[in-house]
């Protein structure tokens, strides 16, 4: 069997007993085969990471027009043709005049103290920057940054002193809050594409609401102003639904009882 077929089967956990032994023998005795395996896994990793980014970027372009409702019998085809023509011209003008930068999620900053790490590159996020999956956003102690999504009212404000990774959004918007805080106003999301925010202790699943999230090394605090958020512990999968006007905390032991917003003690 060719090496790459063996490596593929290994990565897909499809090795038979004989193939497993063949791979073990190969890796134990052939230095070049070991190098080839690492190269193959590296290459596959890049295929998936970059491929997912491209898939995510093109997902926003796949807008399918809605089917028109059945027309009444007295429908005038002449007027319809005029209307279709006008719509087409308007659409073309809209497309032609649409700013090019509004194609993907954007990061707007309040000052020079916001940095984006993209691969090995570090850049200062001045003005509007189009975000890519894998970007890591660092806000200094006196600057905030806002993530905006074109075509909807969702806004996510990253608080000063925070560290956030902007993740692949192909299955719904996703962020990881590694440190600090953020507050968000989220437009209604499709149930299959909920906004997911991951912290060291919890996952907040959001379908459309206003809320704030803050995390440190011990605990994550969620305040929901409006709507509802599914708050799940990353360690034991315990979950609570936090509705508007309520808060919850989560550490390694799971989310606490939901308490009214005003009486929630600070973590």
């Amino acid at each position: 069997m060719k090496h790459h077929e063996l490596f593929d089967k290994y990565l897909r956990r499809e090795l038979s007993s004989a193939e497993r032994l063949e791979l073990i023998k190969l890796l134990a005795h052939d230095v070049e085969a070991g190098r080839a395996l690492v190269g193959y896994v590296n290459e596959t990793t890049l295929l998936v990471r970059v491929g997912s980014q491209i898939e995510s970027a093109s997902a926003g372009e796949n807008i399918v027009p809605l089917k028109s409702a059945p027309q009444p019998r007295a429908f005038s085809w002449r007027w319809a043709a005029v209307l279709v023509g006008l719509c087409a011209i308007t659409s073309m003008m809209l497309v032609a005049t649409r700013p090019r930068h509004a194609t993907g999620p954007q990061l707007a900053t309040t000052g020079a103290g916001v940095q984006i790490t993209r691969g090995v590159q570090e850049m200062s996020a001045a003005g509007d920057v189009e975000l890519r999956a894998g970007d890591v956003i660092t806000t200094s102690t006196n600057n905030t940054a806002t993530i905006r999504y074109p075509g909807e009212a969702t806004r996510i404000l990253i608080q000063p002193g925070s560290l956030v990774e902007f993740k692949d959004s192909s299955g719904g918007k996703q962020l990881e809050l590694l440190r600090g805080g953020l507050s968000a106003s989220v437009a209604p999301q499709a149930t299959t594409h909920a906004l997911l925010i991951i912290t060291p202790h919890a996952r907040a699943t959001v379908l459309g609401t206003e809320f704030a999230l803050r995390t440190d090394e011990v605990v994550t605090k969620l305040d929901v102003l409006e709507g509802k958020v599914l708050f799940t512990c990353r360690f034991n999968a315990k979950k609570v639904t936090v509705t508007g006007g309520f808060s919850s905390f989560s550490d390694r032991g799971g989310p606490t009882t939901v308490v009214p917003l005003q009486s929630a003690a600070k973590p």
Partner: protein
Amino acid sequence: MPEQNESPVTSSVSAEDLLRAAFKYHDALVSYAYGLLQDWALAQDAVQETFITVQKKHAEFTPGTNILAWTRRIARYEALNILRARGRETFVGDEELFALVDAQFEEHLNHDAVAVLEQQKAALHHCLAQLEPDVLQLLLGFYRDRVACERLAAVHRRSVNAIRLALSRIRSRLRDCVRLHLALAEVKP
């Protein structure tokens, strides 16, 4: 692999500085975790946990030593944790193969390999963007989502053998494309 003194962090390090330096090896760590865990989603989880641990244990890092080697050791620990946790449910890890694959990464995933990875990434972006959407879906379905070949064959209306052959050809085409881009980049002024 000997510890290489190539870390950009040389004096006392804050958690933030160390995390930022460690993030430069994000792709390499995902690749390592993917190699150990053979599951894309679990590999992502392991790397997330790795960065959380890097932040928590930043004081234990010795400035001037190899950040890649240090974070890889953490990633190994997190991968083992995941396997152990899942061993209680459905998946029992193959310790012998795990150790062998781990040894290959320790030997061959060094700073030079990471530099190559970053160059390839930029070129691959261009090459993958030129693929037809269904070809990209096939690649992601096979590697990221581990969709069964029979199902991929049904979705793409081909035989299982044709799917495997197509994947091999796509990877070969992409490899050529990346090579060409890297060669062109070298000759550009």
